[in-house]
Each structure stands twice: as structure tokens, then as C-alpha cells.
């Protein structure tokens, strides 16, 4: 890893709402379907599916965390494009909202009533958890 330090590549994070981030970074660690994947300078071209989770990237040694939910990451020619449904920097996250979304989703998942869309509830829970994790809060405490 030290090998790639200081060498940068371009990271773009876009959502349907806006372009969230577009700058050069040293490294990005993204939550893919098969676990976290780190991408550094000269990474092999790859297209992956992202889950809800915390995305981290490093610029001049400084690490930034953000919550992303759902999407894709396309890496090629030293350019990584993250297409996410939502992406927020840690300081943009509304903690109380994420917290209540988490509780709501949890209640729905635990309820045994008919007509509960479990997949949707699970997705909502994952999104809320990603946001809370990005700001460093564990809801289970």
C-alpha cells in the first residue's frame, strides 16, 4: 500500500441529485457486494455493485468518510466513478433522522404482520446503518 501513496487518481461520486465529489484521491475504499474493496492508483479496470455502507477515501493522507447507498463503481483508466443512489459526507448526515429511520425499519422487520415488505425494510435499515456508521454511531448501544 505504501507503494501507491502520493500517487493519485480521479474519483467521481455522482447521484441522481448532484455530483457529490469530483477530485483526485490517493485511495478509495468502497462497500461492494463482496465486502470492502480498496482502489488505488493504477487499479485494474473493474465494475462492481455497491451496497449501502461507508465509503472512505484518502486525500493527502486525510481520510474522509461518507455514507453511500446502492449503486455501482466503475474503475478504469485511473478514474473511479461511483454511481450511488445517495451519497452524503459524514457532516451532512442528519443523525436523528437516520436514527429514527433505523428504529422504524427495525420495528418493521420484527413485526409479524401481513403486508410488510421485508426487502424494503431491510434496505431502509441498511441505509440508516450506513449513515450512522459513517458518523461513528452504533445504534445498538
Amino acid at each position, binding site marked *: 500500500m505504501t507503494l501507491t501513496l502520493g500517487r493519485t487518481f480521479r474519483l*467521481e461520486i455522482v447521484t*441522481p*441529485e448532484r455530483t457529490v465529489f469530483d477530485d483526485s484521491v490517493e485511495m478509495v475504499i468502497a462497500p461492494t457486494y463482496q465486502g470492502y474493496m480498496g482502489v488505488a492508483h493504477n487499479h*485494474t*479496470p*473493474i*465494475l462492481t455493485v455497491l451496497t449501502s455502507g461507508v465509503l472512505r477515501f484518502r486525500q493527502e493522507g486525510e481520510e474522509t468518510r461518507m455514507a453511500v447507498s446502492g449503486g*455501482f463503481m466503475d474503475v478504469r*483508466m485511473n478514474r473511479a466513478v461511483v454511481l450511488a443512489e445517495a451519497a452524503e459526507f459524514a457532516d451532512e448526515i442528519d443523525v436523528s433522522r437516520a436514527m429514527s429511520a433505523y428504529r422504524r425499519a427495525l420495528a418493521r422487520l420484527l413485526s409479524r404482520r401481513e403486508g410488510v415488505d421485508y426487502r424494503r425494510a431491510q434496505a431502509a435499515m441498511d441505509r440508516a446503518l450506513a449513515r450512522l456508521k459513517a458518523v461513528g454511531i452504533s445504534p445498538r448501544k
Partner: protein
Amino acid sequence: MQGIRQIKRRIRSVKNTRQITRAMKMVAAARLRRAQERVMAARPYAEKMEEVFRHVARHKQNLDDPLFQVHAGGNRVCYVVIAADRGLCGAYNANIIRKAMAHADQLEQEWKKEHPEGPGLEFSFVTVGRKGRDYLSFRRFFIMRDFHTGMDLPTLELTQRIAEYVTQAFVRGEVDQVYLVYSEFVSVMNQKPTVRKLLPLSMPKAENEEEEGAEGEEGKKAAAAGEPAEGAQEKTADHAPKVAQKARREGGEEEAGPKHWVPDYAMEPSPEVIFAKLIPRYIEVFILQALLEGKAGEFGARMTAMDNATKNAEEMIDRLTLSYNRARQAGITQEISEIIGGAEALKG
């Protein structure tokens, strides 16, 4: 000629109207700006999504997803009509509906040519925005579902609900073709009603046909890494001049020389899984773009309409003021002549 008092009252009333239309114009202008910004902000996502979509599709030979399936002999056509919730925006809504009707007529004629016997086409509608629903239900068309846009700009959530509903209807076989009718935002003054086919999905065309041809010769591996470099060249250049150049040589210009190793384009977990995840997003982007452009167009149309209304009100006020002055003048003249007449009579 009207009495002075009536004219005065008319002027006051028109002035009030002008105030209202002027206010509506200002509101529309402010919202238009926001809507335009949203359209612009959504564009990079749409473009990148299409790029990725095209890319994956090229690597996946069989497009067996149900959304690509052409329903053979299917005669049920669904229109998703994206109109406004409110009127007072000129011919905006009427134009969209007219476009849908014209398109439906044309489809029907073509269908009848190909299928002179048997049933004709069956049309159904999914409406977004109250005006579309009102008109179509008044004309007794079959409305499968109606979505509300509300006052605000369209959200991703609304988009997802529409996308889900339409794709479900298609997959279940309730409809065989889905068209999107919306107003393309050309400029503030100009909105172009447009029909786009949504389902069954077809492959997005490559932007550059020649590029396609060159890639075929180069072989798959070069194509995988070479083609994207076309777009990314400029941007990547400062970060990795060597790699970019390498790809340029291999993907773009055909140059003799030792072939550089270009890594294969990996897809995780697999092209199939990615494709399955990609398709719904792709459709959503499609719809979101239409919703946003429609909304921007609506505000543009309203702004123009209200601007015209304000101008008309001004013109009317001018005219009324003129006749008011005339009437006043005439009144004064009459009074004077009456006084003079009276004085003359006394004298005589």
C-alpha cells in the same frame, strides 16, 4: 361610452390581475431556476449510467432479461403521460396530450396496416400530474394508475414508484409496450413534447459507429479498456499520462508497434448480476430525466404565459386609461359648454 366610474373600476380590476400574473411569473421564474439546476445536476449521473449500461451490455451477449423481451403480437400499448398538476401555463399540457394522441393514432394506423384483421391496439395510460389525468379521464380513456407530482420538484422516490409500477405491469404481461410522453426542455420559451419508447428496452446506440468498427478489429480485450479511454482521455491525462497514451494507441488510432498489455475489464460479482441491478436504475434515470425536464418546462411555460398575461394586462390598462381620460375630458367639456350655454341664456 362607458361611464367614468365603470372605467375606473375596470382599471382597478385589471391592475389587480396584473399584480397576480406578475407574482405568478416571478414564482415560476424562481422555480424554473431551481428546476433547471436540478436538470443539470442530474445529467452527469444519467450520462455515466448510460455509459456503464452500454459497456456491460456489450460484454453480455444474451439480453435475456424480461424487460428486453418483445411481446410478440402484443397489442396493448401504455403511455406514461407526464403533464403538470396545475394549469395557467399556456399550451403546455395540451401540447403533451396532443402529442400522445397523435402518436397513438400513428401507431394504430401502422398496426392496422400490418394486421388488417383481428383486434386493434388497446391503449392505456399512466398519468403523472393532475392535468393529464383530468383530460384523459374526461375523454374516457383507461387510466391504469395516476401519480401525483405535488408542488415540489420530482423526487427519486416518486421516480422509483413509477418505474416499479410500469416494469411490473410489463413483466406481468399486462402491457406490451410502454411509451413515455413528456415535454423536453429546449429552452425557457420552447418546450418540445416528446415520445420515447421505454419498454421493451432496446440497446442504447453507440455514440460513434466508426469507433465500434475499429474496436471489432482490435479484439475484445483492447475494446474493453480502449473505448472508455476515448471519453476519459483528457481527464485522466494528468493523473496517468502513460496509461492514457497506451490506451489511446490501442483503442483509438491504429498504430503499428508492440502491443501493450491491457488488463481485462472485470465485473464483480458477474456481468449478469450487475446487469440485473443496472436495468432498474437505468429505467429510473430515464424516467427521472423526463420528470425533471417536464417540470422545468412547466415552469418555463408558466413563466412565459404569465409574462404574456402581464403584458396584456398592461396594454389593457393603457387602453382603459386612455378612454378614461377621454371620458373625463368629454365630461369637462360638456360641463363647460353647459355653463357657457347657461350664461348665454341668462345674457340673452
